[in-house]
């Protein structure tokens, strides 16, 4: 971890501390204060947007572990989310399983399904692995649409999340639930990548042959990455189902799987901050277009129908291309550069 000038680690505990300096701790406290008091400042709509962003962050954090750290490209992440959504919906609605247990089961089942689709990763990589994960998306969604247990194409009504008898129904209650799980998910992800497992992931990503020569069991670690990445997707899917009060295959389109990859590119592959920034940027861009389009439509009535609201995908694509060309390390890298510049200011090189 890069530290400000003058800060040194004198013990192991200092070395592993995530928030090391007083400034970092202060900023963290401010951030937590802002997040905890958000319902006071935000209306129901913005809380709903924040919930969607939080769920996206969880899912994209999982994808980042799989793709950003371990180098296994997955374009079926929305499909794995649907496994979590349906698992949680079925367990809570049909079998009366408590929400928190169902949430964990959703993660584990999505992780297990992810491992199955991750098996080809030992033999194929890059473009070919991407194709096999696309197949996962379509197979999972097909099953969801045709299985009576999942409600077929109609999907399922989902009970509100309930913790110790307290039903989570309002946007504020949902916000705190999503916030808590998002924070835990980010914290766990941050720590996973600092463990032996995380370093093995990075070794596999950087050069799998060299990693194998060093004694890393590729099959085991690649499957572990698929499990962890899809576990996160399952948790995100479960939350989406319980805050929407319904789930169906329509919630998990293929386009979302592509968008998730775009988010980690824009945010920064292989960083903990990347998925957060990527999800924020793309979701807020979408909100901006949705909010502005009625006004733009009225201001420019001669534009083709749907043009103003339809520019969102164009902007997403443009953003991904620009980042790939000019900042392939994403917004997280920009943030690191900004911090470095700030620390040296006004005596930069």
């Amino acid at each position, binding site marked *: 971890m890069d530290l400000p000038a003058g800060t040194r680690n004198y013990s192991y505990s200092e070395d592993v501390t995530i928030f090391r300096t007083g400034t970092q701790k202060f900023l963290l406290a401010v951030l937590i204060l802002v997040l905890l008091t958000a319902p006071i400042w*935000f*209306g*129901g*709509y*913005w*809380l*709903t*947007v924040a919930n*969607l962003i939080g769920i996206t962050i969880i899912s994209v954090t999982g994808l980042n572990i799989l793709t950003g750290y371990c180098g296994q490209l997955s374009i079926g992440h929305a499909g794995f989310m649907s496994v979590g959504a349906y698992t949680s919906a079925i367990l809570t609605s049909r079998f009366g399983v408590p929400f928190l247990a169902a949430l964990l089961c959703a993660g584990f089942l999505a992780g297990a399904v992810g491992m199955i689709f991750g098996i080809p990763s030992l033999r194929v990589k890059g473009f070919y692995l991407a194709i096999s994960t696309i197949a996962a998306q379509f197979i999972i969604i097909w099953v969801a*649409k*045709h299985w009576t247990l999942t409600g*077929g*194409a*109609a*999907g399922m*009504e*989902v009970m*509100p999340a309930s913790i110790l008898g307290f039903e989570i*129904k309002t*946007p504020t209650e949902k916000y705190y639930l999503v916030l808590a799980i998002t924070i835990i998910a980010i914290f766990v992800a941050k720590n996973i990548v600092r463990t032996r497992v995380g370093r093995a992931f990075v070794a596999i990503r950087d050069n799998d042959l060299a990693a194998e020569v060093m004694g890393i069991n590729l099959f085991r670690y690649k499957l572990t990455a698929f499990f962890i990445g899809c576990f996160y997707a399952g948790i995100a899917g479960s939350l*989406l189902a319980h*805050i*929407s*009060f*319904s789930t*169906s*295959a*329509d*919630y998990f*389109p293929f386009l*979302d799987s592509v968008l998730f990859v775009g988010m980690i590119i824009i945010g920064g592959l292989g960083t903990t901050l990347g998925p957060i920034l990527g999800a*924020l*940027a793309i979701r*807020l*861009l*979408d*909100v*901006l277009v*949705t*909010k*502005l*389009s*009625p*006004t733009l439509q009225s201001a420019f009535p001669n534009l083709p*129908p*749907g043009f103003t*609201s*339809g520019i*969102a995908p164009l902007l997403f694509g443009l*953003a991904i291309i*620009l980042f790939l060309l*000019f*900042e392939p390390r994403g*917004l997280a890298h*920009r943030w690191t550069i900004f911090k470095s510049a700030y620390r040296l200011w006004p005596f930069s090189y």
Partner: protein
Amino acid sequence: MKTRRIILPVLILMVLIMAISPLLGACGGTKAKAGEVLKIGMMTPSTGPVPEKGVPGQHGIQDALLYVNNELGGAAGHTIQVDWRDSAYDMAKVGTIVQDFINSGDILFTTHSSSEMKAAQGVANQNGFPGLATFISTMNLHPALHIYGPTPDYGDDWAALAKYYMANIWKGTGKPKMALHLLSGSVGQGTQDGAKAMADQLGIELVDIENHAISTTSEIESLTRIKTKNPDVLIISGTPAPTAVILKNAKQLGMIPGMTVMCASASFTKALIDLAGADVVEGVYGVFHTVSWDDNVAGMAKATEYVKKYHPADYGNMDYLSTWNTVLLIREILTNAVKAVGYEALSKGGAEAWKAVEEQGIQKLKGYKFEGLQGGTATYTPGDNRLDKFLRIYQVKGGKIVALTDWQEAPLIKYPQYGDK
């Protein structure tokens, strides 16, 4: 250095976008003065996979609002103000849009499609926020909670087509063999629900049920499977674009002309003829809840005047007419509600206003005639959230959609799988 010069403006732009989003949201569009407006939320899938339905639907809303507010004096003298959003047929986004409507003080909301409503109804039903879906499916209305249909549902579509087929086309002995080609999702599911509930009763044998995706480009394989079952009639339930693909493929396979083909209401509009070609759809039967554009009814002159003035490309489009009618119905609902509880109670929005709209507006509907633009009248019957229960069978003749029958009432079908008793 060059790279840095480009990256910096891009980053600044992104940061600005993120920064101003909450501010724009807080503005909430044009604010009307207190005492002037009744706010409702409406969404259409104007982009995404079904713009051929969403765009005419959006235009129907815009034009009908002009008509209602400028010529009919709004609802009980109050301007109807619409918060319109493009859902892009993105179900996660629909959830945020509904919350936006709730938060903006809207007292009623509509979706264009049943899929949008499926994604919205969880939050709406939990909050008691009343909603209407212009095109509605069985799972939206069963069990009857806070979601209403200005029209019959897709299950009723199937029943109406099947009854017409049995009464007027089937001349053989025994049970006719029927195949279904259904759009995956609430549209196809609704039709399948109707078929499964009523097929035995009507004496029809379902020999094959195939599904298609909304963005399908070829259904040769599924149609070949259907062809091997040798059905007497094929019912397609989907949106115009995939239905056009199916019809073109059926023609390629020599299934049409020859086999009777019928379409449920989601696809049976001018867009289908435009996309598939008049020669392909010639003779295809369909069912719909509005009059045709050639009908001489009281409200047609105004609808025609507005469509020709503002959106001439939509002339002849049934999606346009459907949302036009939905706006007329909303005016009637809001008029009832204002008369019953007064404007002040509604203007604040929130749970009390929603309750008033539902109980004093929607549930007090009785005999509203849609200016003659729909077959039946909008009347609320307890336990049945379909407000209009009438359908009519049409056929494409000479490249135009022509009415074949008078209006048929669609009896309420019970669906135990959705909680009906």
